[in-house]
């Protein structure tokens, strides 16, 4: 063997060893067959369509957070106008991002302008169209983008924390491509995502508010009637279940509460489920609040002993216990929970509230048995067809056919190893990519072999037939591969999840194929030629 050939062979061997090591050698060098298969299963990441699990796409209603901000500004603005004695006509929120102020006296215009500039820099002020002395405050686009981004980041964080409480193996929470407001949640092995969905979707907005009127009203109208048609300043009506004497719930009622909460979910330090002290068989959620909140809660409860305090969760009064003594940093939420409900609620409270509500856009659940079925059938069919192709190649091209078989096998090993090492996920469309790769691998070999046969028929000697055959076929192979690579690149750039998976597998497969069918196959031919008799017939 000449030294050039030897180096090429060593290079190929090195590639094979690296690939095999990448496939089977991690995380620790295997010493038993079980470790080999274990390592392989660890390295090979299967998509949810192959191993079973739930795939959820949800949309964060980011505009809600923007509207919330406008709401706050709206309240603060009225407050400030009142303080600075600027009288205006009606003030109204137009949509989530604009506030209209009508009939501003010309004398106050300057003061209003200064107020907006100094206190509300998130908004720009302009003359409202069609309004005499009317002004329009519009939220700056950069502020909107910031709020949306923050809302997304916070939602991602919160959902991640909530999911991690479920104790699943390798859940995945990531923003997904289609818009600026969508999140992909993947839960491997989760047969029924209903519970996970509820936990993700729960608002988790917790507030403790002082109850103003001890008895809840049967309807909103009844509450209004009691107070002469207008609610007292700084109060609000919140619905909730009425607890009757025996701890049985007695239908829906309306509670009149102090609008500003004493403590909110953000003040919680930790929440844990525990048995309900008052209702045997039921569960409650015990919590502790941060030191800072305890400084507020202690004096407040001390001053309001004998009054009731409502626990409001996502706009519903859960309970309204009487404050019996000063509470410093401990408390509980009861609501006739089952153990599971109490566990879930603790999880949700610990993870924090969602900054905006979410909606589900897409949900796919592949049962584990279907996943197992598709792997088995897909692999069986692929192996069967691969073997059929190999047998045919050997029958048709004899010894050279073995060369093609080696090249194809190596192609497959490199492809799988590269996917394993780079942490790419194998999905069903990915298998499609593998099929096309094998097809093109066969094609490259056939192209070369047919060319060599042609040259042999034209009377060329073995060595030069192989030489010319490879040279001529190389141009074609390059053209076909680059064309397909170009299309794979576009599919990767513009495609969505499954199409991307296809493009990745295809790209790696094509590159591997260029290496095996051109380089490796050539080395094997050269090695064979260097050993055989010059006059003998080439087995092709």
């Amino acid at each position, binding site marked *: 063997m000449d030294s050039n050939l030897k180096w090429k062979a060593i290079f190929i061997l090195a590639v094979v060893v690296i690939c095999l090591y990448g496939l089977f050698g991690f995380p620790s060098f295997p010493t038993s067959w079980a470790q080999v298969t274990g390592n392989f299963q660890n390295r090979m990441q299967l998509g949810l*369509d192959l191993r079973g699990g739930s795939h959820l796409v949800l949309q964060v209603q980011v505009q809600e957070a923007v509207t919330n901000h406008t709401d706050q500004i709206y309240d603060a603005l009225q407050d400030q106008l009142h303080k600075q004695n600027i009288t205006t006509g009606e003030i109204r929120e137009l949509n989530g991002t604009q506030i209209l102020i009508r009939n501003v006296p010309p004398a106050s215009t300057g003061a209003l302008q200064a107020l907006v500039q100094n206190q509300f820099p998130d908004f720009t002020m302009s003359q409202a169209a069609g309004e005499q002395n009317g002004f329009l405050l519009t939220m700056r686009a950069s502020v909107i983008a910031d709020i949306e981004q923050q809302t997304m980041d916070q939602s991602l964080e919160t959902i991640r924390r909530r999911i991690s409480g479920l*104790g699943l193996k390798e859940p995945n929470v990531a923003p997904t491509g*289609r818009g600026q407001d969508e999140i992909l949640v993947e839960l491997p092995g989760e*047969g029924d995502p209903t519970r996970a969905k509820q936990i993700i979707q729960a608002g988790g907005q917790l507030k403790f508010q002082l109850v103003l009127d001890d008895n809840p009203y049967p309807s909103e109208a009844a509450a209004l009637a009691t107070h002469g048609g207008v609610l007292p300043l700084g109060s609000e009506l919140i619905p909730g279940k009425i607890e009757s004497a025996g701890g049985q719930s007695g239908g829906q009622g309306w509670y009149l509460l102090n609008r500003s909460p004493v403590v909110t979910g953000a003040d919680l330090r930790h929440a844990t489920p525990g048995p309900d002290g008052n209702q045997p068989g039921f569960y409650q959620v015990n919590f502790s609040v941060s030191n800072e909140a305890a400084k507020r809660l202690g004096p407040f409860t001390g001053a309001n002993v004998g009054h009731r305090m409502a626990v409001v969760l996502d706009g519903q009064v859960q309970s309204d216990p009487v404050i019996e003594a000063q509470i410093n940093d401990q408390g509980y939420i009861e609501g006739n929970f089952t153990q599971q409900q109490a566990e879930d609620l603790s999880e949700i409270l610990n993870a924090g509230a969602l900054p905006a509500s979410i909606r*589900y*856009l*897409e*949900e*796919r*659940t592949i*049962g*584990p*048995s*279907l996943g*197992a*079925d*598709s792997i*088995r*059938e*897909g692999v*069986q*069919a*692929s192996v069967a*067809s691969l073997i*059929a*192709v190999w047998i*045919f190649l050997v029958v*048709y091209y*004899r010894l050279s056919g073995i060369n093609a078989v080696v090249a194809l096998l190596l192609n497959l090993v490199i492809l799988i190893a590269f996917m394993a090492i780079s942490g790419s996920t194998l999905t*069903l*469309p990915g*298998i*499609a990519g593998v*099929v*096309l790769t*094998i*097809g*093109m691998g*066969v*094609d490259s070999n*056939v*192209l070369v072999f*047919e060319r060599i*046969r042609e040259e042999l028929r034209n009377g060329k000697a073995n060595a030069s037939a192989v030489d010319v055959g490879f040279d*001529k076929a190389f*141009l*074609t192979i390059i*053209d*076909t591969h680059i*064309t*397909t690579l*170009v*299309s794979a690149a*576009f599919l990767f750039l513009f*495609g*969505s999840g*499954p*199409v991307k998976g*296809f493009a990745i597998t*295809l790209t790696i497969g094509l590159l591997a194929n260029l290496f095996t069918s051109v380089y490796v196959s050539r080395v094997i031919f050269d090695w064979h030629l260097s050993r055989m008799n010059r006059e003998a017939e080439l087995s092709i």
Partner: protein
Amino acid sequence: MEFFHEPKIDWMGKAKYFATLSLCLLLIGAVAAIRHHGLHYGIDFKGGTMVIVRFSSAPPIGRIRSALDAAGLKNNEVTSSSDISNANSRNDVMIRVEQNGEGEDALNAAKQTILTALEKNFGTPSSSKPDFNAVAVPDLANYLTRRDPLLLQTSAGDRYTQLAQALIAARDRDHGGILTNFNQLNGVEGANSAVIAALNDGFSLNTFSVLNAQVVGPTVGAQLRRQAILATLYALAGMLIYVAFRFEWIYGSAAVIAVFHDVLITLGFFCLFYDKFEISLTVIAALLTLVGYSMNDTIVIFDRVRENLRLMRREPLPVIINRSINQTLSRTILTSGLTFLTVFLLFVFGGQVLRSFSFAMVVGVVIGTYSSFGIAAPIVVIWNKWRGQGATVPVASSAEKRAEKRLATARR
């Protein structure tokens, strides 16, 4: 071994027949499409709810339908989805509900309604125990740890997790995901009679199990559809530019037209078998595969044409193209034959999930091979005839032409 030795077939002389054949195929597809009011989109692209349920015995399709009707899901579609290559799947049923009312929330509700209706009619009556056929490993492991049937107490470690894994694996692998009796778990390692008694105590066995549930909102469906079409068109444009650069623009256009032709005819076949196959994201992957395959096939022939044009400068273009097709015929038959074999095996044995995919491939491989000599090559010939230069055309690639021009300038 060799099938044939450079045949002398006049391919370009048969261009008329090819055109007729293609038109017929396109027409059949178009008629089928019109008859069914367009393509059969799966819920991936249309939005809707799909649930595949495996029953433990022959599924009462009529009763399922009436149960769904009673639950208020009027536009439901219940079909058996068994698969000849998978013995476990003989009792599988696919339930599809189209969008019922507005918005994404209605869809989530539809899935719940289906499951509740099934539970009511086919679940274990008056049992509050969880269904073992639906339980996942962590929950089962929790239950076993709590019950401790092996009396391991604190030394249990992850023994119960392993046991739960083994039990679930036995359920899914050996019994197709559905048990009818807990004694079927007798052979599982570590599952003695105490374990089985504990399972019997804590779980019920529903006569059905959900294999696959998909809910796709209408907006996502529309987005996915648009994105798939755009990605494909961009990919085609990219290939057109590359081929035009390597050959001449007419070659690029001919190749892209041929590929387009293949996709249309394959979609036509999907319309023809409207009830059997639907267009899902996986089918899009198959169409992309076929685009790549057909392009590959066309380029191999064009490559030979380019080479022969240099060798046979005096011959007319149709002769050169015929010769090129004949020279590469052996390779074409081999590659297509082997690829066909692969996708055909995938079609028969690849299972239900891959069925639509492999159907597209089976049709696509045949059409893709045919279009290279039946469509792409004749387009080049006809174009050159139309330009009135049918005899000798200088078909060097544009890159080579530039090189020649540079050379000429240099000489000057």
